[in-house]
């Protein structure tokens, strides 16, 4: 599949990227990457280290500008959840939510805070300082802040990194609920099995090129010609896929 080919779905795109290119000096971090994500769709961006996953998400979030290409939705209309919880450890859960709700200029900050406390199941910990919370709970607050303005698109950069399995399960339960409400969720991850399990579609990046866009099953089928002797699990299929394409 050519690097710039995107899978178009029948449903209208919540976000579409076209020909995104980013260079750091001589090094090309992204090469004409194009794709689209539909409302309610969970899209995983996977690839080896240095593939360009974080660069792609930070361009979609408006933190970096691409050297070429464009994104249909402006940054203000996307929710951004960076890899490290971007919250203030000296403020309480509620204070963090309230601060960002006010900065987002939501109509009724207190109502939104109450709703997010409910959704994150952190009402009991509302007055606790973030510094006293576990990594999983901090990540939930981090994601909740990204959802304060009820954006149609949510961008998560490796959200499950540094979480234990139980915390991961709760995280994906929470993210899945957001997708069911119609939010398009685009996340990067190193854990390809997590991508297989939770994503509707995967984007495979390597050396800044988009090598694949489709379902996990389609990726597995693409490896080894799709015969019965092909790899038994998705991770093996993914590694073989990269190897076959010289990565």
């Amino acid at each position, binding site marked *: 599949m050519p690097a710039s080919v995107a899978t178009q779905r029948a449903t209208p795109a919540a976000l579409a990227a076209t020909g995104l290119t980013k260079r750091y000096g001589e090094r090309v971090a992204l090469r004409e990457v194009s794709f689209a994500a539909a409302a309610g769709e969970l899209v995983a961006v996977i690839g080896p280290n240095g593939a360009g996953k974080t660069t792609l998400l*930070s361009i979609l*979030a*408006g*933190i*970096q*500008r691409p050297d070429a290409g464009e994104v249909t939705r*402006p*940054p*203000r209309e996307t929710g*951004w959840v*960076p890899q*490290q*919880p*971007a*919250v*203030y*450890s*000296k*403020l309480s859960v509620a*204070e963090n939510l309230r*601060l*960002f709700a*006010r*900065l*987002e200029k939501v109509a009724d900050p207190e109502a939104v805070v109450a709703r997010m406390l409910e959704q994150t199941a952190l009402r009991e910990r509302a007055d606790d*300082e973030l510094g006293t919370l576990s990594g999983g709970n901090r990540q939930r607050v981090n994601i909740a*802040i990204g959802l304060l303005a009820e954006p149609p698109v949510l961008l998560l950069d490796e959200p499950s990194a540094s979480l234990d399995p139980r915390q991961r399960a709760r995280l994906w339960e929470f993210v899945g609920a957001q997708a069911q409400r119609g939010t398009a969720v685009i996340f990067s991850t190193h854990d390809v099995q997590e991508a297989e399990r939770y994503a509707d579609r995967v984007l495979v990046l390597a050396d800044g090129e988009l090598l694949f866009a489709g379902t996990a099953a389609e990726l597995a089928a693409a490896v080894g010609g799709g015969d019965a002797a092909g790899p038994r699990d998705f991770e093996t299929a993914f590694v073989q896929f990269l190897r076959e394409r010289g990565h």
Partner: protein
Amino acid sequence: MRWLLLKDLRILRRSPLLVALLVIYPIAIALLIGFALSRGPDKPTIALVDEIPRAQRSFSVAGSTLNAGEYLPALLRSVNVVRAATRADAERLVRDGKVLGAVVLPPDITQRLATGTEQPTIEVLYNGADAVKQRYVDSVIRARMAEANVALSRRFQQATVGYLNLLLNGGTLNLLGRSVDILGLKNAHAIVAGALAALPPDSPLRTSLGQVADFGRLAIDNLGVSKDVLRSVGQPLVVRQTIVGGRRTPLDTFAAAVAVTVSLMFLTLLLAAGLLALEREEHAFSRLVRGLVSRVGLLVEKIGLAALCAFAVTLLMLLALGGFFIALDWGRLPQWLLALAFGAVAFAALGVALGALAREVRAASLLAFLLSLPIAFLALVPSGAVASGLYDVVRAVSAIFPFRATLQALDAGLDGGGGLAAALAHLAALAVAYTALARLAVGRRFA
């Protein structure tokens, strides 16, 4: 921006160690400077051996009676005195380190002074264990000796002028308990002139008496100016001070200005650098600048908060110094406020530049400390203390940091005189330049 300000204030309130540092540091500096200004240096302890016999404490100089005890207070001012009975006792005290030095007044001091021609010698014993104190004692004793010499010289001068007046105008001289009438040059000249007028025109004495009369006139004229000559000999050099540059700021006020500027620098730099670096350390920077607040807006908020906090704390410090230790000109309050405000903003701009470059709170704090001390030190180097070329370099380096300009502004604000407007303009330019540098540093790679 209001919500960010409130957030930062809340975080500061929940950081008791930082707030304690913000409050305690300037208070400690103010107290140290205040006590240093109000107490002055400790007096060194000196042993005194007074070997002058009781009967010889008073002595006569040209008919005037002087007392040695009259001059001891001047000699011993600025030192604590321990009386020693003998020179050996004094030497032991000095050797044991119980006193820093000893002054020995010899028994013949008054006899020699009474001659008016012989110079008595005062012996000074030093303890060389502490070179700094030894030098201090040496300078103190030399200064006091000079004062005593001047006082004695003045008395000798007065006595001599009295003699000259007697010689010139005549009168009564008390000598060894007897009164002796002195004719005086003016009276003698009048008698000679009268005798000369009474002589016949062809008298052979006329030529000789005429010579005596001419000498008398010459002596009267020259002795008439002798008092001024004596005054010049007694004090050949008179010092007149003229300040050609800078201001007449009293030392204590200048010291207070230095203390306030140092506190302002530390507080503002640490606070501004830390507040900005904290945004990155908490990973919140990228979230904030993607539409919630602009990068410049974020920098302005940090500069404003740091400047406001440091301004309030250092103003309290200045008021405390003014209330207890130094005299402040309250009529110049607007000028102090301007100087403090501009200094705070310039330091805060430098602080956010450091925070943006360092990117981490600890590194930013360390950088602020490392930078603060040399720039304060350089700004306080006086002209003439180093070679002129080096001083130009020092002045150029000092000009690119806000310390010197803040000190100048505060000094001008406290004491009046010119230079305030130029210093404020300098600080404003530095604030703009450092904000621009910080903006460059918080580019897209900062997040």
